[in-house]
C-alpha cells in the first residue's frame, strides 16, 4: 500500500517553483513497550507535582521558565512562546548547492522522499540535474511549527530531503584530543591493514537483520502462551595477548577460511 504524504510544500529554487509531497523515507521497527503498574498490570500515567509535597499541579497552573542561574528563572508566558514559533509557510527554500559529500554524515538526521505534486517533468528533471552535477541543495522550511534546514539530494532518480542537525548538535572529532598510550609499530600497522583488506567487501544492507528484535518478539509470544523459555545468565570474558601474535593468528585463520571455502 502506498504511503500517505505527511506534508505538502513547494520547492523554490530562484524563480522556479516545484510543488512536492513529503513522505517519510524511514520507519521505526523497534519493539514498543508500555510502562505498567507492576502489581495491577495497568498502564501508568504521568503528572507534574511539587517535589516537596508531592501535590499535583494542574496544567493550567504550570508556568514555563528559563533557568538563567541555578534557582533563578525568567518566566515566559504562552503568548510570548507562541510568537517565537516560525511563521507558517509552504515554501522549501533552496538557497545554494554544494558538492555531495561536503556534508559530514554526522549531520544527516532524518530522510524524507519528495514526490511530485502535479507536474512530473520538472521533478524528474531536477533529480537528474542534481545527479549530473553531483550536488546537494541546502534547503529551509517550516513544518508543524518547527523550522528545519536540510539537504536536497537525488537517489536513484528521485528527490530526497534529509533534515540536518544544526551547528552545536554535532561534536566533531577534531575538537577532541587523540588517545595517547603506546603507538602501534609499522609492522603491526601493515599486518592490521592486511587483515582489514582481507575483510573488505561491498556494502549490502540485506546482510544486516535485526535478529534481536525477532528474538524478543518470539520470547513475548511464548510468554503470552504461558511457557517462557529459561534464559541463560550473561557471561563476560576478557583475554589479553600480544598484539602482533594476535594479528598473525587472525590473518592465518582468515587465509585458512578462504581456502576452505
Amino acid at each position, binding site marked *: 500500500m*502506498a504511503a500517505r504524504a505527511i506534508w505538502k510544500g513547494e520547492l523554490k529554487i530562484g524563480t522556479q517553483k516545484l510543488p512536492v509531497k513529503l513522505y517519510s523515507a524511514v520507519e521505526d521497527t523497534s519493539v514498543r513497550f*508500555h510502562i505498567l503498574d507492576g502489581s495491577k498490570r495497568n498502564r501508568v500515567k504521568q503528572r507534574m507535582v511539587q517535589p516537596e509535597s508531592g501535590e499535583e499541579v494542574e496544567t493550567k497552573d504550570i508556568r514555563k521558565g528559563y533557568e538563567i542561574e541555578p534557582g533563578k528563572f525568567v518566566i515566559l508566558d504562552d503568548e510570548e512562546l507562541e510568537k517565537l514559533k516560525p511563521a507558517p509557510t509552504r515554501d522549501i527554500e533552496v538557497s545554494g548547492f554544494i558538492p555531495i559529500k561536503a556534508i559530514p554524515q554526522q549531520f544527516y538526521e532524518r530522510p524524507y*522522499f519528495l514526490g511530485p505534486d502535479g507536474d512530473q517533468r520538472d521533478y524528474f528533471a531536477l533529480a537528474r540535474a542534481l545527479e549530473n552535477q553531483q550536488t546537494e541543495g541546502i534547503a529551509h522550511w517550516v513544518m508543524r511549527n518547527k523550522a528545519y534546514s536540510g539537504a536536497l539530494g537525488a537517489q536513484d532518480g528521485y528527490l530526497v530531503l534529509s533534515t540536518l542537525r544544526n551547528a552545536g548538535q554535532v561534536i566533531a572529532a577534531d575538537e577532541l584530543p587523540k588517545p595517547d598510550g603506546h603507538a602501534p609499530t609499522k609492522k603491526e600497522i601493515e599486518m592490521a591493514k592486511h587483515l582489514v583488506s582481507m575483510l573488505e567487501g561491498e556494502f549490502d544492507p540485506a546482510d544486516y537483520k535485526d535478529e534481536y528484535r525477532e528474538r524478543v518478539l518470539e520470547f513475548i509470544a511464548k510468554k503470552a502462551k504461558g511457557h517462557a523459555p529459561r534464559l541463560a545468565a550473561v557471561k563476560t570474558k576478557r583475554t589479553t595477548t600480544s598484539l602482533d601474535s594476535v594479528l598473525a593468528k587472525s590473518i592465518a585463520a582468515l587465509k585458512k577460511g578462504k581456502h576452505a571455502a
Partner: protein
Amino acid sequence: MRPFWSGTITFGLVSVPVNLFPATRTTRTSLRMLGPDGEPLARRYYAEKTGKDLEAEEMVRGYEIDNGKFVTVSDEELERLAPEKTRDINLTRFVKEDAIPPVYFERGYFLTPAGNSEKAYRLLAEAMKERKDVGIATFVMRGKERVVAIFSDHGLLRAETMRFPDEVRSVKAVGLPEKKDVPAAVVRKFESLIKKKAKRTFSPEKDQQTVELLKLVKRKQSKASNVVELKDYRRDKEPEPVDLIQVLKRSLAGKR
C-alpha cells in the same frame, strides 16, 4: 557521566575494549515547568485507578498483545535474549568510506579506549584510515540491536548507528510514480539554476528558534517582576547538566 555502552570491538582476533559516548547533543534549550510560586516541578508516574504515585521499582515493561492485555518483560530477560556475540562489535566486514548511502545513518557516537586498549585502538584507527575503510557490524545496545559503521576520524573511532534495511522505505513502497524521461532542455534549465547558486563548502547553521528564545529571555530578565528566584534552592536534588565535550576529553585521557 557513565558511558552509553561499554564493550569490545573485535577484528580478526584483536579485541579493543571501548566506551561509547554520544557524538550529538541537543541544543534546543528546554524550559522548566514551574509551579505557581516558581518552584521547579517533577514528573511522577502514577496508577490511574488508585491515583497512587509509583516508584521506578513498582513499574514493569509490558508488550501489548491484545487491547489492554500485556506480556511483561524484565530488563534481565531482555539482556539475556542477546547472545554473547551480539553484545560485542565484531567487525567482519569493511567497506569503502563512501559506499553507504546517507539515508542509513542515524546517530553518531565516539568510542574511547577502555582498560589499556590504546594501542589496539590506535592500530584499528590507523589501518582503517590508510585503507579508507569503515567497519560494519551489528551489536545490541540498550535493548535494541543496531547496525553500526565504525569510522576512523582524526585518530578517533566514531560509530554511526544505521537503520536496518526494513526501516528504510523504497520508492515503490512509498508509491512514487514511475521514473519518466525528461527533455534534455529541462534538465539543462535546472543545471544552470544549480550552477548559479553553487557553493563550495557546507557551513552548519545555528538553531534560529533557540537564538530567538535566548533573545527574549535577555530582554525579559532586566525587569525584576519577570524573574523568580528560589531562596533555599538545592542543586543536589537534580543532576548537573552534562558537558559532553568534557566527558569525552576525560575519557580519551584515560580518566573516569
